[in-house]
């Protein structure tokens, strides 16, 4: 371990990302999910800024600022308002119980670490060792989506997955071109707006945001 100090901090923040991904997986409350998501965005912003400063990639600074604006401030604010408007500050029981989910999460981490090893051996960036963590965050967020029935929890899982992908891009190739990242940021924002409109529609129809109601195709 003879990495320079900024990169050691990037590694620490990568570990924090994974830790928060696990916290998201074990969180029962919607409000807790939103707060954790905001923290994850902050860790992502810090690590991107550090990589940008260390490798002198100015466009990464822009995407770090975008992350801060979008994922730490705007989206959590929208979600908090939504939770208050829809009045759903209750516990949600996940589909599988939490200890089992966490065990599956560990298996996913081992899988992701092994999967990333040959890829990170090929990558030429200084942050390549964090690629495994990025993939683990993607898979765990996906698991978070699968194990929730609440619409908002699923959307937060989706956004956490996007965090993981963003981190993977930073660690493997110092981020995508700025145009692509601007496009993704806009997509995420528009996507959330569309989903919020969906939430209201779903709630109007079924008087709940539990997605089990959508599994039935016919009305009785």
């Amino acid at each position, binding site marked *: 371990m003879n990495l320079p100090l900024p990169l050691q901090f990037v590694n620490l923040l*990568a570990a924090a990302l994974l830790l928060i991904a696990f916290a998201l997986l074990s969180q029962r409350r919607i409000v807790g999910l939103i707060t954790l998501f905001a923290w994850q965005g902050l860790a992502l912003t810090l690590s991107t800024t550090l990589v940008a400063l260390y490798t002198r990639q100015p466009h990464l600074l822009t995407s770090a600022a975008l992350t801060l604006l979008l994922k730490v401030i705007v989206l959590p604010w929208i979600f908090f308002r939504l939770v208050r408007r829809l009045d759903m500050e209750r516990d949600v029981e996940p589909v599988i119980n939490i200890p089992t989910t966490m065990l599956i999460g560990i298996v996913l981490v081992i899988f992701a*670490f092994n999967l990333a090893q040959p890829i990170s051996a090929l990558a030429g960036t200084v942050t390549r060792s964090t690629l495994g*963590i990025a993939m683990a965050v993607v898979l765990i967020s996906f698991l978070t989506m699968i194990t929730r029935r609440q619409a908002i929890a699923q959307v937060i899982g989706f956004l956490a997955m996007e965090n993981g992908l963003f981190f993977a891009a930073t660690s493997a190739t110092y981020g995508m071109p700025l145009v692509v990242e601007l496009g993704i940021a806009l997509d995420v924002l528009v996507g959330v707006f569309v989903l919020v409109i969906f939430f209201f529609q779903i709630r109007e129809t079924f008087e709940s945001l539990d997605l089990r109601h959508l599994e039935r195709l016919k009305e009785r």
Partner: protein
Amino acid sequence: MESGIALQLGQTLLAVLAAPLLLGWVNACRAWLANRRAPSLLLPYRNLRRLFHKDVVLAPHASALFRVAPYVIFAAMVLAAGIVPTLINDLPFSPAADAIALVGLFAVARVFQALAAMDVGTSFGTLGARREMLVAFLAEPALLMVFFTGSLIAKSTALPTIVEVFAHQQFAIYPSLAFAAVAFWMVSTAENARIPVDNPTTHLELTMIHEAMILEYSGRHLALIEWAVALKLFTYSTLGIALFLPWGIAPVGDWMGLPLVLVALTLKLLAGGFALALLETLNAKLRLFRVPEFLGTAFLLAVLGMLVHFLLERP
């Protein structure tokens, strides 16, 4: 060599004498955080003195085990306090036990506590003993995993070597230790019977874990057990400091640094005690059946720390 032994005795004595003070500090912080007037910091000492002056009342069918257990528990905790590097690293006593044997030492105390609780045959004692064993068998593997994460980095299970690697070699950030630290906090709340696993100040028998086991004790036996509880908290705090904040523990044979080391230790313990009180105030006690989930999470976090070590920190 003789000076080493003197220092070893001094460190153990310091732990034994200062342990109730740490407990008093945590209680005072909890009171402040709850907007109450804090009790005196010396209250635990006064409690111990009061208990030592009282007579022992024994149940008629209490066996010898019941009478021996407090001494065994106290002795195990004193031994543990002597082994953990607190002031100066690598004292003559440290090779006596590595991290794994230390976990075993805590287990010895716990087994005697549980056996003594079942010895008298009251229902609350048995209930407390069973609960304690439920919590303990989940907490122990997690604690071992935390130690293994440190051992993997230092390539040794001996505590002095781990401290040596963390404190006195080239500074490096170990992300795996972040996971281990969270897991260690969760385990130490379970092992020390603190919120969110157990409430040390409860008076309601149905929610008790640790308190239910010592309901039958009185007089000097109770004093020894209370002292051992304080000592366990102190040992766990110094253990956490040795693993995660070891800067300030003096290397072998550094005599001049001793006053500085004492100041550093005091500051770290004050901060750690406040952090413990803060976390206890912010959390509510868990339902007993949520405790396995809590400790399972601690275990998984420690395992995750090991995995992260293999991914990020392998040279």
